[in-house]
Each structure stands twice: as structure tokens, then as C-alpha cells.
């Protein structure tokens, strides 16, 4: 199991254990974590699962594809550590990962 902490914009924490090889978007939606919509169902095509990955985990969360970079360009409040949660897969290397959820998704 992989431990994931989602931190809402107001600081509310959701600590969840999930099996490996699931996306951080799917895990959030299945566990009713507010603030992650995932409208496209994980196709990297809507940018409604925007999260900020804490620095310690950023390099372990993988490289952004060209599509992810393009989709993020149109999201609001983009930072260096912005990612789409649907493009990050749970694995033992990410056990303990912390991601912050923006105030809103566009």
C-alpha cells in the first residue's frame, strides 16, 4: 500500500492508503477528497485534477508529458511543482507523498 496525503487549500489533510499503480486523481475521487474533479476520467485532457507536489516528492513523481505541460498551461495558479494528479501513479517510491490542492480547478 502507498500512503498519500492530500492537503486542501484551507489546510485540511486527507491521509489515504491506496494500492499501487493507481493515479492520484482516481484515489482522490474514490475517497471523496474535495477539490479534485477529474472530469475527463484520467485522459490528461481537462486539467481539473491540478495539484502541487511537495518538493521532496517532485522528482520521484516522474516527468511531465508534452500533453500534461500543454494542459497545465491553461490552468490557474500554476507553479513549478504543478502536476495533473491523473498522470502520477502510486508506487512504493511515492509512499508518504504529500500533494496540495489549489483553491479551485479551471
Amino acid at each position, binding site marked *: 500500500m502507498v500512503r498519500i496525503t492530500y492537503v486542501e487549500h484551507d489546510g485540511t489533510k486527507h491521509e489515504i492508503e491506496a494500492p499501487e499503480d493507481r493515479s492520484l486523481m482516481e484515489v482522490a475521487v474514490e475517497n471523496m477528497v474535495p477539490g479534485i*474533479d*477529474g*472530469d*475527463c*476520467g484520467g*485522459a*490528461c*485532457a*481537462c*486539467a*481539473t485534477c491540478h495539484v502541487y507536489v511537495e518538493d521532496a516528492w517532485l522528482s520521484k513523481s516522474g516527468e511531465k508529458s508534452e*500533453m500534461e505541460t*500543454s*494542459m497545465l*498551461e*491553461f490552468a*490557474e*495558479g500554476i507553479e513549478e511543482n504543478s502536476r495533473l494528479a491523473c498522470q502520477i501513479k502510486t508506487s512504493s517510491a511515492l509512499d508518504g507523498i504529500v500533494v496540495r490542492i489549489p*483553491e*479551485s*480547478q*479551471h
Partner: protein
Amino acid sequence: MSQAAVKPEDAGIPDPYSLTLDQIDMGKAELYPAQAHWAYFERLRKEDPVHFCESEEFGPYWSITKFNDIVHVDTHHHQFSSEPQIVIGDAVDFQPPMFIAMDQPKHDVQRKVVTPAVAPMALSEIEPLIRERVGNVLDSLPVGETFNWVDLVSIELTTQMLATLFDFPFEDRRKLTYWSDVAASGPQVGDNSMTEEFRLQELTKCLEAFDELWKERLAEPRKNDFISLMAHHPDMQNMDPMEYLGNLMLLIVGGNDTTRNSMSGGVVALNQNPAEYEKLRADPSLIPNMVSEVIRWQTPLAHMRRNALEDVELGGKTIKKGDKVVMWYVSGNRDDEVIDRPNEFIIDRPRARHHISFGFGIHRCMGNRLAEMQLKILWEEILKRFDKVELVGEPVRVTSNFVMGYSNLPVQLHVK
């Protein structure tokens, strides 16, 4: 672009199963006001989901009818170009550039310039204003009389919103409605009520009016309206007049025909499904979920078109380089492999946001959050005031293969 309500058989529209597959041309605009397209698309999804047609009106084109195939085309923008045109018909000689019909990198540059006007941060600032206006419009409606919901509510509210987004003179706002109708009509979408020449003449007047506003905004400090954002941005301030007009047409139609018809569509859907209306009255907290369901059920824009940049295999067919490809969102939203009981209107549907009306990929609707907010506020304010908005006659739908809209919804209000 309107006509009286008709049934498929009365409109002389054949049963889809009486035709051979190659005779099925979803570009025929008369299918839509007669609501005959549902049965046609159902046949295509079952028998020929990636469908080729030699259309007399629109030339040869592919129809993509299933949800996942549409997502595939929409997300492969390097294979499927949005240039030169995103509707089924080709322009004859009037084709102003607009960023919805551009590929990367220019599309991304221009889209980013105007996005801040409709981003969530800006929306939370204008929410109280929208609520106040919705309240005023609803309070001014004639109680005890039959009136056209499209005109007094759907058009009025979307037009007021557009005037705000452009900071357009408020008293002249119905000009925006008119230009939107002109921009979204014409032979390219199967509408023959206006010639290309007439459209150009009317839209030139639109350009003249907006040219004045451009100069005015340029002389003032930058604000968060569409015109000011464009006029002050180095990447857009040197657009030629036709490109300015093209982007205006995009932003006007994008904010008008879409939300307008979802505002009307909700009334139709709830009247056709009284048990859902009952559910809504009993639990107004269902409104945000219902809004997504209305947008799916209505699918205000039926299609978007792409052009293949290379040979692509899809659904066992080979789409050839240069082929025209039409993604039928209105069909994808009824695909039972992705959406459970897709023909039913269910306001508490699980995962209601997973619909295709906004498109997916880099061209996904930019104003989606604004649209949802407007619809949410509208229904919250309706429920505070009225027990029922009752549809008392047949809806009159527009003739278009692009805009899934209404021109007349006769209603009566039942005050609480």
C-alpha cells in the same frame, strides 16, 4: 434559424434503418430540430461508429460518434488539426482567424491572453453581481401569463453576462445577441437563412463597434475584460482587423449560444421528467450535479471538426491525411459504454461531470466554470421563487447541425 416543432415523419425524415449506411449524413441540419438525430446516431454507434460519408452539402467527411473515440481525436491535436475551421462546412470566402481554429503554438498564446477573464478567481469576484442580475430578471417576469423563456431569461441573462465580460455598453447588449446569432449561422452549419455576403456585412458592423472599444481600452489602464486583455497584450495587440473579428466571434458565440441553450434545456428536461423536478424541489443541494447533467443532456454544441494531418487508424478504419473529421459530442454523450442509461435525465447521476460537452484536450471550453456558475445561480434563484417553471407548449428548436438550441419555450410560472 428557427422553425416550428416537427416530428421526424412529418418533416419527411426517413427512419435511419430504411437507409443504407453510406446514405447517412449527420450534417443534414433538418435532422436536429425534428430530434431525428438520436436514432441516427444510435445506429451509427452500434453499426459504424467511425463513419465515412460523401455529403452533397459538405463533401466527404468522417463522423466520430463514440465517447472514447472522440476523446482520442480531441486529445491528439498533433494528428488532428483545428485549422482552418472547426465546423463541418468549409467557409467560402469569409473565414476570420480565431484561436479555436488555430493549432499550437499560436492557439496557446492567444488563449492564455483571454483566459483570466473567465478563470475561477475572476468568477468569485463577479458571483454576487450575477446573482443580483438573475434575481432582477426573475423578479421582472410576467406571472400568470405565457411567455418565451428563451427571450426573457436565457437570452437576457447570457447577454448581460457577455456585456460584462467585454465591458460592452450595457444598453446596447442585444447587439451582442444578434452578432452571436449571425456568427453561429450560415451555410457552414446547414442554415440557409443568411448568405455569406449578408453575414460579412453584419459582422463588419460588429467589428466597427468593437474597434471603437479597442481604442478606448488601449487608452486606459489594463482591466480584466476580454477587450482590454487583448488590447494590452503584446502577443495580441497587433492582430489585423479580421483576426480581431474572428476572436470576437469566438468569444461572443462561446459565451452565448452555449449557456443560453443550457438555461433553456434545463426547463425542457425537468418538464419532461417530473420525478426529477420533484427530486430537485426536495433537495436543492443537487443543483451543482444537475447543472452538469443538463449540460450533458443538452450538449449545446453538437460537434467540433478537425482535419487529419496524417493517416490515422481509428475504430478499424483508416482516416487519410487531409480528411475532414467531425466529432459528434451530442452522440458521445449518449454512448452507453461510457455513460449509464445515457438517454435518461438523472439529476443525481454519479460522476455527472464526466460528459463531453466541453470537449477535451487543449481546445476544451475555456468558459466552462463560468457556464456552470451561471446555471447554478439561475436554478438556486428559481427555486427560491417558483414552485414550477411549467412548459405549456412545444419547444421550437433552431435548424443547425452545430447549435442545439431553442428559439421559443412557452412557459408559465407557478409562484411559491
